[in-house]
């Protein structure tokens, strides 16, 4: 019984982290169509925000609050200075953002050093039968659920969300009603970056923080968003659920290596059977 509960928590944790890590890319790539290869570095910058905050005596929680703000602002600067010249040019965007990712890794290596750093996991643990589980893992699950829900509600029910969605579909119409599409692009990209910053900051107390941290995640989050398909939020969360469950269930039953193999295999099979992604099955949604 306790084994089942602990395993279920573990699986839920995998799904939650995958969804949280992919959420920013769901906006930037899924919704805006920007092939941002520097998304992994946005995660890395979020993690470093926590590191810098805690080395200045702030708590991990303060770092997690600051990270989306800092990385969101960086996202806005990146959009203004690079991305806005490249809308509708996917190959050029890939090249530019790949270059940006190298620059960001290099800049952080120069300023923070190439070594692995870290902050301790806060909150301690609780007992579940014979097992003890880190409380922070539960918090991560809650943050992931909260962030996904907040983004969904904002895009679905607020005026800003409506404008953002409309701009991605028919920018001329939005312009005709007196709103500058340029500014909508800028703030939407900033939101995607901010979400990546949040995800990176939440992961920081669980692993070591290095400048090349983004490399470990970039492939995984692109796969999740692509498997998710056209409806960015429902698609990404359902893809995260399927892939996260497969990866962690296989990891728990065997080893982490087979977990990764199984996840990639399932992603390939899914894309073969559903070329439009999982949410291609839905008729309408977000």
């Amino acid at each position, binding site marked *: 019984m306790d084994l089942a509960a602990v395993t279920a928590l573990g699986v839920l944790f995998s799904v939650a982290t995958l969804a949280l890590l992919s959420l920013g890319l769901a906006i930037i790539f899924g919704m805006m169509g920007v092939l941002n290869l520097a998304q992994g570095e946005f995660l890395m910058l979020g993690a470093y925000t926590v590191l810098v905050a805690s080395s200045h005596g702030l708590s991990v929680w303060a770092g997690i609050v600051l990270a989306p703000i800092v990385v969101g602002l960086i996202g806005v600067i990146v959009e203004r200075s690079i991305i806005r010249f490249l809308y509708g040019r996917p190959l050029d965007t890939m090249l530019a953002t790949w270059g940006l990712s190298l620059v960001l890794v290099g800049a952080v290596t120069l300023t923070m050093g*190439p*070594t692995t*750093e870290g902050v*301790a996991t806060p909150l301690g643990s609780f007992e579940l039968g014979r097992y003890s589980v880190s409380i922070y893992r539960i918090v991560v699950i809650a943050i992931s659920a909260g962030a996904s829900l907040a983004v969904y509600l904002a895009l679905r029910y607020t005026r800003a969300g409506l404008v953002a969605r409309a701009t991605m579909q028919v920018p001329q119409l939005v312009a005709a009603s007196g709103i500058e599409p340029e500014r909508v692009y800028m703030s939407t990209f900033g939101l995607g970056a901010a979400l990546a910053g949040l995800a990176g900051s939440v992961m920081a107390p*669980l692993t070591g923080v*290095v400048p090349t941290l983004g490399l470990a995640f970039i492939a995984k989050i692109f796969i999740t968003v692509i498997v998710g398909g056209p409806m960015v939020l429902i698609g990404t969360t359902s893809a995260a659920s399927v892939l996260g469950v497969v990866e962690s269930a296989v990891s728990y039953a065997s080893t982490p290596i087979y977990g990764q193999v199984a996840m990639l295999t399932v992603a390939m099979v899914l894309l073969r059977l559903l070329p439009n992604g999982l949410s291609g099955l839905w008729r309408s949604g977000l």
Partner: protein
Amino acid sequence: MLTRRTALGQLGGAAVGFAFAGVSGQRARAADEIVVGSLLDSTGPINIYGLPMVDATKFAIDDINAYGGVVGKKLRLVEFDTQSNNQLYTQYATQLLLDNKVAVLMGGITSASREAVRPVVDKYGALYFYNEQYEGGVCDKNVFCTGVTPAQQIGNLVPWAVQEHGPKFYTLAADYNYGHISADWMKVYLQKAKGDLVAQEFIPLDVVDFGSVIQRIQSAGPSVVFSLLVGGNHIAFYRQFAAAGLNKKIPIVSPTFGLGNEQIVLKPEEVEGLTVIYPYFQELDNATNTKWVAAWRERFGANYPYITDSANTVWNGWHLWALAANKAASLEPAKVIAALESGLSFEAPEGAIKLDPQSHHVVHTVHLAKVNNNKGFTIFKTIDNVEPSDTKDVCNLIAKPDQHTQYTPKF
């Protein structure tokens, strides 16, 4: 032979650096210097081990030069950052031996990197020092392994842990040659100590989520977790183990923890009490070490994180070579090897060490220590002059010199 591939490699690698190294190498020979080579990782995931070793290399060479150099000439170091990439080890080793014509080659951190360098060294009949803790068994006329081996570490750590914590062991090992061979040695010594291996797991170097591993450890309920984890990513294990509250319940012992200054990256409350075993600790109380640590801090800064066992081993490697070359009054590998096999001893920061002629390994005094709350270690038990018997029992390079192999434990 210059193939298209090597030409491209040179262009793509670091053409400018190569050119400079080449030019200054020739100038150096004219100026009557001895060129020596070093290959270590100062970037990439293995740099947690490499950075103190790079510092120790420069420190040792300056020290040898300050005391008159080797056969009356100064040493000049040519070093390459191998970027935690084994392919670069082969490439740069060839470069150092053929182009820079180094008198001795030192370096390599992971056992995979050593096995990339060794065939190159054997091919050109050069002399190579591998200065790092490793899984033992290398039996090669051209190679000297100055680091501590399983007989010295695991052979003492396991019996102590069985007695102190109980017989049920759970092994976590990095998934490459070091982890696999060391896990086998662990079984050998565990059997001798009448312990019981509950399970062993091999973890790829890029794994950062240990959730499933931690759950399996809890299900198995071992008395000790034996960690052979390696590299920056695996630090996450200790953090997640502590976050699950297990660091208070299941003790961890490790012959690798600390070499990468894990005790500095992690917080004391996460790893205090974890037990390790090495020949060298910065805290060692002997005259040579006191002087050495003071000189190190003067050179590299008073707040240098921690001087690792690997840094001490690198220092020993360079000095043993310099002693032998001076004794042989020659730089020719065959003559230097003969001098190295004459039973050299050296007053090292770790204490007096002896180079075993027949196995080309070092007899070390080892210390059991626990991580303390001050980002360092507290020594609590010392075992004097432990032979590298894992290698010495099977390898005799005096009786049978023509060997270039690595022995592994047989069951």
